């Protein structure tokens, strides 16, 4: 297993630059309808984008925990297994400050990209290229963080996942 890549999540602000200089992930949203929902994600990406752009001092938006989400609150570390082509623990709820590790258990390479540009740092395909490769992120700010593998999906279709972060007080 390759050495894990631990990246401390930067808060969703202007200083947290996404890796999408060409604005491709803006285009990857289903448009032009402003509200996008999916069976699994059941979220409004545009509302989420507005929320994550607000100053840190603002109260985080209330997140409704969807049915079927895996409760992983109270844990310091949580694992997500990647197979072809799926994030097995697709919707998880964690406490702020939890380290989440994605491990490739498949034959294909995968990546992790935020559905809302800039919401968190991406994990490149190079970091999850072969079976056994792993990479980690720490989510420090409560909120809703949908993501996807851009090799096998888009923000709203295919290989998608979702991390819901709750404050330690609410866990």
């Amino acid at each position, binding site marked *: 297993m390759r050495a894990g890549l631990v990246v401390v999540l930067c808060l969703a602000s202007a200083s947290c630059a996404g890796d999408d200089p060409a604005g*491709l992930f803006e285009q990857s949203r289903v448009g032009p309808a402003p509200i996008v929902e999916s069976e699994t994600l059941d979220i409004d990406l545009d509302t989420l984008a507005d929320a994550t752009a607000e100053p840190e001092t603002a109260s985080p938006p209330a997140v409704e925990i969807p049915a079927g989400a895996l409760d992983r609150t109270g844990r310091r570390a949580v694992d997500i297994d990647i197979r072809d*082509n799926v994030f097995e623990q*697709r919707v998880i709820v964690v406490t702020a400050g939890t380290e989440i590790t994605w491990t490739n258990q498949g*034959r294909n390479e995968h990546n992790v990209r935020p559905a809302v540009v800039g919401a968190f740092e991406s994990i*490149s*395909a190079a970091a999850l290229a072969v079976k056994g490769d792993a990479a980690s992120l720490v989510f420090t700010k409560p909120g809703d963080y949908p993501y996807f593998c851009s*090799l*096998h999906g888009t923000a709203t279709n295919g290989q998608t996942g979702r991390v819901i972060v709750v404050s330690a007080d609410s866990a």
Partner: protein
Amino acid sequence: MRRFLALLFVLALAAAACGGSPNDNDNADTDTSAAEAGAETSEPGDESDSEPDEGPIVEDEPEQQAESEPEPDPNPLGALRVPEDYPTIQDAVDAAVPGDIVLIAEGVYNESVSVETDNIVIRGVDRHGVVLDGMHSEDLANGIIVFANGVAVENLTVQNYFSNGVFFTGDYDSDFLLEGYRISHVTALNNRKYGLYAFNATYGLIENSYAAGHTDSGYYVGQCQPCRALLVNNISEYNTLAYSGTNAGGELYVVNNEFRLNRIGVTPNTLSSEELAPQRGAVFAGNWIHSNGNPETSKGGDIWELAYGVGMVLPGANENLILRNLIENNRNGGVAISFLPDGDVFWQATNNQIRENVFVGNGIDIVMVQQAPGDGLGNCFAGNDYTSSRPADVETVLPCDGQQGDVSDMIGIEFFAPPAADENIPYEDVASPGAADQPGMADPLTAPPVTAEVIPEFDTFDLDAITVPTGS
């Protein structure tokens, strides 16, 4: 003299005035008439018709004929044209509704197109002239990725994508089984993973296409049971794998294709990395599987490197029918049936039938690879034209009809011996010698669009009609 010249001048002016005005009136009338009546240009006031020798009559006729010809329809299909109507392929696809055709003009398009609308056709006007190019960028992962039913992609080239050329995908986790897909006359070149790819999808057709330069397989059908798919008349060369089908079977017909000059040929297989294991129930018939073991290819994962030079390998594959193929000149082996270690899981290959194939010039024509002596696990061989096998005389030892015998004379894992230090050619640099020869579809500008909602080629497919190819 001056008076005479002046008189001549006046007379000339008068003659011109008299001849011009009737003609002007006729032209105006003719223009109107041409607009109203189409080709007919005869005018009641046109006295020139009765006087064919007059100059104005001759001058009028060509103009009348040109105006009478209808303008050709620049868009007979009513297509969403790129770039004439939409600047990008994605824009056109987003605007399309079911039943539409997106028609792409010649050019190079650095796009990754996502399709979410059912029953549309995406067509290039020229298979070689319409090129989607991903520039090997992770930001352009797939040439065309489809999340909708009934979509057809045809007559274009997809190349240099970070992941796949054309990719149809359902989503097992959300119970979306993509239904209805078609790939026709598509060329896939030097994409990092798969050329033409269907995953968690059913009811499909991949035909008359070409794939080269991929680090996994040129053609991949994965995670479907039943797949209800037909792969026919395709060419796969210079890939790591010609065809791969993980956990894919059930009315899956791979027929009349040419799989040549790859690192490994054809491999239905089982892996725990996908759902619906184990693989079972595919048919491979009428294919020409030859000359695999080509070092001028890109090395894939270690597990596949073990099968280097084998025309057809069935690792952990089950209940497949290998029928009337021509399997020749594959470096290490013709057909190899094998177990597959897969992490904590150990997949056996069982109940495959190898019938009526022709084997010529392979390392070993037919091979049973087993971990330890045991029975044949229901695998059987009949009616094949072959020279060498392990166990020896395999059709006597493992017949399809009758009692099966002792298979102690088999080969172990050592059969799979990777080649000595072949260079690994980066996939971006792998050749595609057959690409330019591939024909485009007929009448791309006028052929009515046919979605993949109904696939008559699959519905009417007749396995009994398949024969052993003649090869070269």
